[in-house]
């Protein structure tokens, strides 16, 4: 179903409709989101923008859509520099955006949603007949069939997305931005969407398609720009480059990975999941037919593009969700209906991905965060009362041991930097000497030294005999720590690979992107 008609030639000779000229963006807190980004998009083409999470895709689109201003450089439209962060910039220049999370009001009708913000008026009243006619005309012109009178929130997701696209097209739009539009759709719906998008291009609309799914990019777009760490890592016409080259651009130069010696696992597995499925409102959390075992002392790494089911998997083994089908057992005990408290009692510890909401309470002190959940621990408690002295001593020891940098242990948790928060959480979770450790993005966004420290502690836990489930988007980390790698895609396990020397990010890529399935 690949469509590689080259429309670039049709646009040849014209100034590119959108061009980024040395765009930089540094946020007030010092985060550098974009560094000297320059590239151009010819008119009437579908252009893909690829990159990992945090590569700068969204920031760049926010700048083009006028939500934020760049701190350096210009955006050029039809060759003319424009200042984007001005009122109604996108509307005036015919730029429409379909957000990943819909910007529709569920209780309003389709017509009301589409005209919202630029309603046709009759005196002071909204001209409903004209509005309806306008929506019908739009819908017919672009072949996007919707019922103008339907209540938006009652429509299926794919139909809501059509409404969102029509809304984006409703103001003489020339450039349409789609941010991860396929995340919420099923494969036939994706096909349908792509056909509509090709029609739109034939109607003269330039489309910017943001995605990290390479197969989709290849089937839809004509050219691609890859962003990595806020910079342009490469650009190509898709007809000219093979998949693995794009993958290398997305993931960066292959790095030398120091693996740990894969361990010989012996004895019975600690965690056994078989045929497990999970139903969820969010399609990104759904799981189908998961088989997974982890032995004591073994680190199993889970690789996958964000939203491939990792969150669902973690929620099952932390007691946050119950499986819809299949069985989960831990150390021979059935854990299908186990609560979080039960999992904890069995020796589960969890380094969650969201440190400030799942891993601690920002408004409480380091001391309080460090002893949270140690109910009944005689060292910290005498009857119902907390033993202030003993607790301070123990927490000071943890802070020292994990080299958490803080003014004092009486400070609030949110006075610490991300890396130090994570070290404190690790100190708390590992203090119990867990038998089963779940490390979910354990080093995301923290500095190299802190990351190395966390890695050491995870390895030490495994040495002690803990079963470790490592979920990470950082392939370097994955290959550094894991004994075995499990790849997830679309809520299923697509590959189980021993972590041997020939296992590289390039080898993992096709599984992660759903291009290949293990037989």
């Amino acid at each position, binding site marked *: 179903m690949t469509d590689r008609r080259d429309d670039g030639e049709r646009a040849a000779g014209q100034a590119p409709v959108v061009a980024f000229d040395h765009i930089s963006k540094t946020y007030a807190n010092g985060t550098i989101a974009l560094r000297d980004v320059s590239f151009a998009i010819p008119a009437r083409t579908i252009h893909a923008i690829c990159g990992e999470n945090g590569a700068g895709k969204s920031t760049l689109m926010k700048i083009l859509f006028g939500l934020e201003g760049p701190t350096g450089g210009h955006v050029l439209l039809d060759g003319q520099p424009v200042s984007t962060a001005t009122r109604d910039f996108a509307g005036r220049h015919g730029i429409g955006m379909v957000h990943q999370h819909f910007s529709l009001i569920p209780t309003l009708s389709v017509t009301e949603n589409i005209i919202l913000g630029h309603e046709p008026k009759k005196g002071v009243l909204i001209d409903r007949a004209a509005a309806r006619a306008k929506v019908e005309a739009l819908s017919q012109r672009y072949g996007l069939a919707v019922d103008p009178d339907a209540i938006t929130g009652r429509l299926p997701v794919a139909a809501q997305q059509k409404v969102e696209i029509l809304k984006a097209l409703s103001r003489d739009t020339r450039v349409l931005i789609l941010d991860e539009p396929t995340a919420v759709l099923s494969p036939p719906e994706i096909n349908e969407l792509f056909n509509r998008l090709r029609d739109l291009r034939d109607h003269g609309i330039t489309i910017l398609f943001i995605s990290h799914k390479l197969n989709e990019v290849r089937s839809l777009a004509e050219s691609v720009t890859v962003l990595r760490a806020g910079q342009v890592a490469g650009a190509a016409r898709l007809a000219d480059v093979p998949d693995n080259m794009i993958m290398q651009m997305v993931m960066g130069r292959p790095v030398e990975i120091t693996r740990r010696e894969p361990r010989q696992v012996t004895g019975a597995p600690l965690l056994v999941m078989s045929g497990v499925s999970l139903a969820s409102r969010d399609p990104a959390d759904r799981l189908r037919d998961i088989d997974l075992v982890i032995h004591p002392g073994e680190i199993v790494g889970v690789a996958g593009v964000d939203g491939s089911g990792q969150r669902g998997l973690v929620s099952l083994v*932390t007691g946050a969700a119950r499986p819809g089908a299949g069985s989960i057992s831990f150390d021979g005990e059935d854990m299908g209906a186990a609560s979080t408290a039960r*999992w904890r009692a069995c020796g589960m510890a*969890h380094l969650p991905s969201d440190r400030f*909401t799942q891993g601690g309470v920002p*408004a409480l002190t380091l001391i*309080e965060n460090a002893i*949270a959940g140690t109910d009944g621990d005689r060292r910290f408690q005498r009857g119902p009362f907390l033993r202030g002295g003993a607790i301070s001593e123990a927490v000071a020891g943890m802070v020292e041991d994990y080299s958490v940098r803080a*003014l004092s242990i009486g400070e609030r948790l949110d006075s610490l930097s991300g890396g130090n928060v994570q070290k404190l959480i690790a100190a708390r979770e590992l203090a119990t000497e867990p038998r089963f450790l779940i490390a979910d993005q354990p080093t995301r966004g923290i500095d190299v030294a802190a990351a190395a420290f966390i890695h050491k502690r995870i390895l030490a836990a495994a040495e002690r005999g803990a079963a470790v489930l490592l979920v990470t988007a950082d392939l370097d980390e994955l290959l550094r720590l894991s004994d075995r790698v499990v790849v997830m895609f679309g809520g299923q396990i697509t590959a189980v690979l021993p972590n041997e020397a020939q296992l590289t990010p390039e080898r993992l890529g096709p599984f992660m992107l759903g291009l290949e399935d293990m037989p």
Partner: protein
Amino acid sequence: MNRAFLAGLVRLAITLAVIGAVILAVLVPFALPHEHPGTVIAAFLLGPLSSLRHLGNVAEYATPIAFTGLAATVVFRSGLFNLGIESGVFLGGLAATTAALLLPSFGPFTPLVAIVFGAVVGSISCIVPGELRLRWEAPEMVTSLVLNFAILYAGVFFLNYYLRDPAAGSLMSYRIPADAKLDRLLAGTRLNSGAIVALVACLAGGVWLYFTRSGLNLRIVGQGPVFASHLGLPSRRIIMQAQIVGGMIAGMAGAIQVLGLYPRFSWTQLPGLGWTGIIIAILARENPFYVVPAALFLGYLQVGGDFLARDIGIPSEVVGLITAAIMLAVTATAIFQHPAVLRLIRRIRQVEAAR
């Protein structure tokens, strides 16, 4: 000196400055038309401190609102904005009166029995909205607000048909028997032994929240509900515990108010003590230890207002105006989270750390 303590002083100083400024800003326009504007302000600010009796009045005003402030603190700490404490006070007063009138005398323990009865019955007002929230996710703010009035009218019905003294001129209960009344502490005031209970309750509440495991768990559930579930804490049970305790304290407030101050139960409207309790809880930053000074401060304003009304003829409603303006000012993030203030606090901490 402790850095956190010093940094806390900055906030305290700002709070006091803001309160002073607000009082003057409201009071000066009332004082100016007066012959001697200075005496107006002096009467308001110094009157309550002028004699032991007036200080007693301050404490008398502070007693019920310290209870309700504590009740609001406990309830809010669980993360629920449960307004049931208002009708909890009413219900507690009514139930205590009922116990005093209808149960036999227990000698010196009669007030205790009546207060416990009032507390238990009063807690219903917080338990019901809490349960509705936990079971069906009904917003507790709405259900408790509506329930307040349902309880009021059910209570008035009960008063009219079961407790009403037909010999009294208006709708009120029979006289509360003398052995059910609380001891007066200070001649010339209505200050009673309930004030001591209030002080002890606030201190106990502070110890609970900050020095016990269950208090820590309550704060974790209230301030980090997602974290609490990741820890595997029994969140529902902890939240319900807080509703029960908060409701009982509110009921106690009503019981002690009625048994300590009034000859008969005569509330036919919500007494408003619960609402004041919410003000206290916010003023005290939901810290039971600060509830006592906050309640005394509002009591002080009230007595100052009485002076204005009695000696100068300025309506005592001015106090309500001042309280409202103070609430606006002390909850203003623009003042307390101002970058300049935060910078100052950070600098103090860093200077201390450098030493």
